């Protein structure tokens, strides 16, 4: 076999005292599509950040063409032909599509940008991806899916040797995926090494030649896709057999005809979510599965009063109180935990105690201040209950690890004694240990009669904790299915195939 194009040896990255990546070996051959597999927090992002120069390695080395290299910035990695397209699109919404593709390597004559040539080139690259859009239009006007493809267009418009695609399909429908896969195969023919990361195992099997499995920051193994059974892959990824995961007995299952705690009818907000009907009974965990941009987050925000409804009604316990904002939702016992922990969740500079008691304080109002001693006491009891570390209520919440921040947010919401808790991607970007704790907590809460709406891009996880799962596509709930009746593969198919009957 030929020599690897890229080889990482003993790659280790520390965040504070915790190793996010622990002595991982990873190799990448020219002309292959290589998938990096692991659950949230397994170290995939850390590995590719190290590879693309976004993070320095604490230990270990990177070799390119057999020569050791050290990238101190993404720019240096790009010059070496290593390009990455992340799930969070890092393009410029205020500039044209053509500029987003070409800027940095744009055509110019005597320092003057040649707009016509820039547009032509952009149009060509876009056509390669099966996109027929005006290169002069503003990027911000296009959908997330198209922007994702434009980001890929930018990456392949230069001399790329290693292309890292981090969840490139999370917002793409099947047709767009097919185009992307065609391009990926083209690139493979041209000798480019592609790293493909996806939650959708089907897609991994469809395009990848080889997989590297990570778990808990450590390497589990490297396999040829065609020699690895799917069930073995899942087991390698989770470190447990699939049967183990199915053992949690669901104490409460939605009783037929029971009065739902929450009943939403024809809920619409802009084009984000349209005519959605949701019923949730006490003690039920309703999973929500959909692509990025499918409307799964919009649904959560509509139900919890974050976004104002354009149409539809939401009834809590058959009552007539309207939810017209987060405050009224909270007063009715409906709380929301955002997928954007940093921007919409944690108040970084405030202490853990202040963060935990913030919602309660907001509900009590300005005058009835929770005394500092009582605040600490309350916070400590929650930190105990959810095992938040370090157990220091005076520490700024922003200094905690992702998993602990998530638990602080849960504590903040649970302190309100809610009846329905809506969790949007609660396990994203947290380590595996914390992730399992969050999942168990959700089950426990449901067993105690709380209703839960659980949104996750990891379909396995949705099936693991959910009682039923609502499938969201293009802003509509297309189906609601009992979780026991679905395998992850079937759910993947449902989520990514628009318009197909089930």
């Amino acid at each position: 076999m030929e020599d690897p194009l890229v080889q990482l040896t003993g790659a280790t990255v520390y965040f504070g005292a915790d190793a996010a990546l622990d002595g991982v070996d990873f190799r990448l051959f020219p002309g292959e599509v290589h998938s990096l597999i692991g659950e949230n927090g397994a170290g995939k992002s850390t590995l590719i950040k190290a590879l693309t120069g976004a993070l320095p390695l604490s230990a270990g080395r990177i070799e390119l063409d057999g020569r050791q290299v050290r990238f101190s910035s993404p720019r240096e990695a790009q010059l070496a032909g290593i390009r990455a397209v992340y799930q969070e699109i890092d393009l410029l919404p205020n500039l044209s599509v053509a500029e987003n593709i070409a800027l940095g390597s744009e055509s110019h004559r005597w320092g003057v940008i040649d707009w016509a040539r820039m547009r032509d080139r952009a149009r060509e690259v876009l056509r390669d991806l099966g996109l027929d859009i005006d290169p002069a239009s503003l990027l911000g006007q296009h959908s997330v899916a198209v922007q994702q493809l434009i980001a890929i267009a930018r990456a392949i418009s230069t001399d790329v040797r290693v292309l890292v695609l981090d969840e490139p399909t999370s917002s793409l429908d099947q047709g767009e995926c097919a185009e992307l896969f065609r391009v990926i195969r083209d690139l493979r023919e041209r000798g480019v090494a592609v790293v493909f990361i996806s939650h959708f195992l089907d897609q991994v099997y469809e395009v990848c030649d080889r997989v590297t499995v990570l778990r808990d920051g450590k390497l589990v193994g490297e396999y040829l896709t065609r020699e690895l059974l799917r069930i073995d892959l899942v087991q390698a990824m989770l470190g447990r057999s699939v049967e183990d995961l199915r053992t949690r007995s669901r104490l409460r299952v939605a009783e037929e005809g029971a009065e739902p705690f929450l009943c939403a009818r024809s809920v619409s907000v802009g084009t984000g979510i349209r005519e959605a009907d949701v019923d949730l009974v006490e003690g039920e965990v309703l999973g929500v599965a959909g692509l990025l941009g499918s409307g799964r987050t919009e649904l959560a925000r509509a139900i919890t009063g974050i976004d104002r409804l354009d149409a539809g009604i939401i009834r809590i316990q058959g009552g007539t109180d309207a939810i017209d904002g987060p405050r009224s939702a909270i007063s009715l016992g409906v709380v929301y935990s955002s997928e954007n922990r940093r921007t919409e969740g944690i108040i970084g500079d405030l202490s853990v105690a202040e963060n935990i008691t913030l919602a309660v304080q907001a509900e009590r109002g300005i005058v009835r201040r929770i005394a500092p001693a009582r605040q600490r006491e309350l916070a400590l009891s929650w930190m105990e209950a959810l095992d938040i570390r370090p157990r220091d209520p005076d520490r700024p919440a922003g200094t905690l690890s992702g998993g602990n921040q998530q638990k602080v947010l849960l504590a903040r919401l649970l302190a309100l004694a809610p009846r329905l808790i809506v969790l949007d991607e609660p396990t994203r970007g947290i380590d595996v240990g914390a992730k399992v704790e969050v999942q168990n907590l959700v089950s426990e809460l449901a067993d105690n009669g709380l209703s839960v709406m659980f949104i996750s891009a990891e379909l396995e996880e949705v099936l693991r904790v959910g009682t039923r799962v609502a499938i969201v596509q293009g802003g509509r709930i297309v189906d609601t299915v009992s979780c026991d009746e679905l395998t992850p593969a079937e759910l993947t198919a449902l989520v990514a195939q628009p318009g197909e009957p089930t």
Partner: protein
Amino acid sequence: MTRWMRHRLFLPVVSLVALILVNAIARPRFVQITVRDGELYGALIDILRNSAPLMLVALGMTVVIATRGIDLSVGAVMAVSGAVALTIIDGSSDPGNVGTVLVAIVVSVLVALVLGAWNGFLVAVLEIQPIIATLVLMLAGRGVALLITDGFITTVTSPPLKYVASGHLLGLPFALFISVAAIALIALMERRTALGVLTEAVGINPEASRLTGVRSRGIILGAYVVSGTFAGVAGVIYSSNIMAADANAAGELIELYAILAVVLGGTSLTGGKFSIAGTVIGVLIIQTLQSTILFLGVSSAESPVFFAFVVILVVLIQSPRVYQVARRMTGGRRHHPAPEVTTGVEVTS
């Protein structure tokens, strides 16, 4: 010792003390306080007295900045409130009557309150960027003040009005009592109720606060109301000091000095955690500096050069990069990159 040094009021306090010491050595008269007719006089007393308008404006600014905002209109609001007060007194049959002056003050402060609420409405309800929202009033406010005074500098003779800025109570300047009352009021409002922590939450992360059920609109609106009201009082003190309403000169550049005072006091312009004590010290530093500059025989018109260097010095001291360089030069240890974990814990060890 190191614990003291890391307190965020350490640098402001040290600067103020150093400034006073330098002055005391250069001219011992600076720290002398004389008693005349049972009233205290001296350079330090003057600083306390003259700082009252800036103190009020800076306190309001602190609350606004804590919400991630800024209030550029305070100077214009001062001009308006001064114009309103003086026009009422000037137009009354008995300018020397205490009742007249009280009515004038109450009306002018109420007008300022309404102007503050207007700013708050633009920022909190229409969600317009604070700089721009308050820029509107900053531009238009002085024009309004000029219209109120018909383009003239209204002057009055009114002993009760003069008392506000120049009178004494219990041997101390009356203006100092206004300052202290304002400080106490703000401190009570922010720290004895949950307003302080909720304000900080809104300032640090407005969206997260809204999702958590914090009434961020009300809190932001309230901050601008406080700022406007305090600026109104400052406007009354200013016009009492010169016994005139000068729509152009009243509160000129005061928004910038107020912002400087807040930053000097260790409150970040990006909002969030704020320090009332810090702002008080910041105001005293600025006032002492101004007195120092005058003493040095520099014309007050040239004093902005000094403030330019003060601003540069302060921002350099607060700059993370300077901190890094200093650490590297003193041989600080390197550690693993940790975006979410604060550094500096190891300093104590």
